[in-house]
């Protein structure tokens, strides 16, 4: 069965803007969100630049729901709420609205653990687990464990929107972001849901994130970025029937593993599904402007492509091609390819 899944709403947050048009225009103008890292002294790392959204330290959160989400969980929540609101899905049964997310890893805040660590030092100033277990562990906030689960943000989105359908959270590389969008599209295609929120978000730039990138060998890629996006997906026929605006169509996709050959395999499979020759390739590349958004990259690239299609070009020659390919490669060896088409 050909894949024809409509994108009927989108929302985005990146270092270059908080609307699809803002991000598109900034990229077209050649702007870059990549700057020296702020929030902590990154001079000990080999990568000292990033495309950050959060340029101030976190304020303490008293609201339990906000506390367990962390900044990138809250960002995910915000884009999902915005996209869901724009799509006007109120008439759908909430059990038929799904949620598929590609999620960057969560890292514990030093502030969460430092008091307990300090109180657990012995007379020689060394961390003593015996002391830690005897009581100082109680200085860790009781909600800290939940903040370490990167499915909790998806749960909070479900609560906020009262959606109860098919779902999954995938982590943590760029190809996981493609897979999340694809699983959402397949869920619709196979009738498990009538609408799906499909989203991706990068982890916050922290010392732990830089460490993870350095230790996995991925710091040679673009500097890290912060941000994410959410799409509302529906079967094309359903979207047309209810008069929803169709911003674009997901027509094919695949993920594969194992380096360069994986790129070829994923592309072949995605283009075969889209019933397009592979020559139609036009890869959406945003990371020179937005940084490496990891599992958020695919959704953000789709949003920028949609924004390009919506704008009236200065001349026909400036019009973006109708077909766009989103390509995402993770440091562990996974590759994801998504083929999208302008809605006509």
């Amino acid at each position, binding site marked *: 069965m050909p894949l024809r899944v409509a994108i009927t709403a989108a929302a985005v947050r990146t270092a270059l803007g908080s609307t699809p048009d803002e991000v598109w225009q900034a990229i077209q103008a050649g702007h870059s969100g990549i700057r020296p890292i702020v929030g902590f002294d990154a001079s000990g790392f080999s990568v000292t630049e990033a495309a950050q959204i959060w340029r101030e330290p976190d304020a303490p959160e008293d609201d339990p729901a906000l506390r367990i989400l962390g900044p990138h969980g809250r960002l995910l929540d915000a884009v999902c709420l915005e996209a869901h609101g724009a799509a006007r899905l109120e008439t759908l049964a909430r059990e038929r609205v799904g949620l598929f997310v590609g999620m960057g890893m969560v890292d514990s805040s030093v502030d969460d653990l430092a008091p307990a660590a300090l109180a657990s030092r012995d007379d020689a100033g060394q961390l003593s687990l015996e002391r830690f277990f005897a009581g100082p562990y109680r200085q860790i906030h009781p909600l800290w464990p939940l903040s370490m689960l990167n499915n909790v943000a998806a749960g909070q989105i*479900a609560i906020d929107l009262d959606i109860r359908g098919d779902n999954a959270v995938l982590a943590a590389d760029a190809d996981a972001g493609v897979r999340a969008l694809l699983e959402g599209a397949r869920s619709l295609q196979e009738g498990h849901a009538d609408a799906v929120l499909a989203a991706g978000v990068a982890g916050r730039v922290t010392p732990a994130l830089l460490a993870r990138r350095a230790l996995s060998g991925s710091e040679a890629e673009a500097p890290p970025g912060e941000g994410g996006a959410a799409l509302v997906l529906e079967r094309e026929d359903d979207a047309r029937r209810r008069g929803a605006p169709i911003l674009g169509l997901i027509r094919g996709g695949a993920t594969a593993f194992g380096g360069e050959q994986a790129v070829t395999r994923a592309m072949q499979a995605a283009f075969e599904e889209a019933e397009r020759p592979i020559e139609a390739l036009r890869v959406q590349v945003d990371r020179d402007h937005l940084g490496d958004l990891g599992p958020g990259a695919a959704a953000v690239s789709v949003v920028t492509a949609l924004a390009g299609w919506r704008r009236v070009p200065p001349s026909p020659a400036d019009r973006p091609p109708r077909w766009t390919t989103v390509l995402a490669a993770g440091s562990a060896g996974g590759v994801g390819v998504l083929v999208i088409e302008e809605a006509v």
Partner: protein
Amino acid sequence: MSRRVVVTGLGLVTPMGRGVDTVWERLLAGERGVSAPQRLGKDVPPTRAVGEIPPALLEDLRAEHADADGQDDPRTLFALGAANDALAQAGLEPGVHPRAGVILGAGPGANRIEDVDRFLATDGAFDAVAYGRHLGDLERESLVRHAAEQPAARIAAAHGIAGPVHAVTTACSASNQALGLAYRSIRRGETDWMVAGGSDSQVNPLGLVFFVLLGASANVDEEDPASACRPFDRRRSGLVMGEGAGIAVLEAEEHARARQATILAEVAGYGASLDAFRTTAPPPDGRGAAEAMQGALADGDVDPSEIDFVNAHGTGTKRNDPAEIRAIHTVLGEHAGESAVSSSKGALGHLLSAAAGVAFCCCVRAVQEDAVPPTANLHTPDRLCDLDLVPDAGRRREVRAALNNSFAFGGQNACVVVRKYVPGGEA
């Protein structure tokens, strides 16, 4: 394309040992694998009961997989061991497999308080510069060294698996979601076989205070730590942390038959839902759980009366157990009383992202052998838990189909139906 999906291999690494035969026989006999924590030596965590992989087995796994870099975390080692066993049983050799994939549930990894302390000044200031300059000093098992996708990627690299390779991170429902996504991939024709299930380990200083901080940890009788987790019992008090891996090889029926593989069971349906209620508690009426169970049955066109065994999520917490029982009543209706319902968490602890993978393997054995494992530590059932909960020891009984339940903190629910394989039926 819609193809039947069958199971051709199983692998288990659990607190009761390695290998499906060993674990299954011990579970049926009513044995328990929970004990006092051993890995941290003299340092005694506030939870005095844990479903820990025996230290000797962990060392065996480390030796078995020392060929890579000797730096794997326990979660990855458990996954590699269980996947190797599952693939060996399936008769699938390492090679080049572009139409195969790996999808595993994986926990967040081991947050290490040692990593924070090492770079903390006495005034509490964190020295990010020193941290960046001395990454080699970070703990070997630290989560920054081991991303969620690492177990799946290591398995794929070792066996030449080149299709979709991913990690699902929905905590306690993660491995059922991984099995479900693998099932869908094969059914739609994207892949011919998949390695799926889950692996997790939180037996580390911060992991062992995880449930304590949440107020969800079971009270422990230090004379009998194995009795700490009591699913469905009136005196249940909470969870016991466990670790391990449960992994299966799922395969297209036509592919398995063409290579004359032994088919163990059929995967007959998958359903997932969201509670949209609270992060830390299910709705009391179990509606989210019921929706996932109903989804799984409808997906495979399985009649509720076929479900002879429910491998319950059964965590032993005050709120989860009665909510799940209500959900089973809702879904199975009059047949609920005819079905055996048990939880392995009393015997093994809660294996978190691996829990449903282990339970899936038990469901396969249940339909293969017409037997159901018991609910360990169940002595006086809660009056709200009014089903056949299989106390004491396992039981021989017909099991045409089994329902594998899993529900996560955060409200993600995922259920998988396993049934006896009968050649020639319709998908």
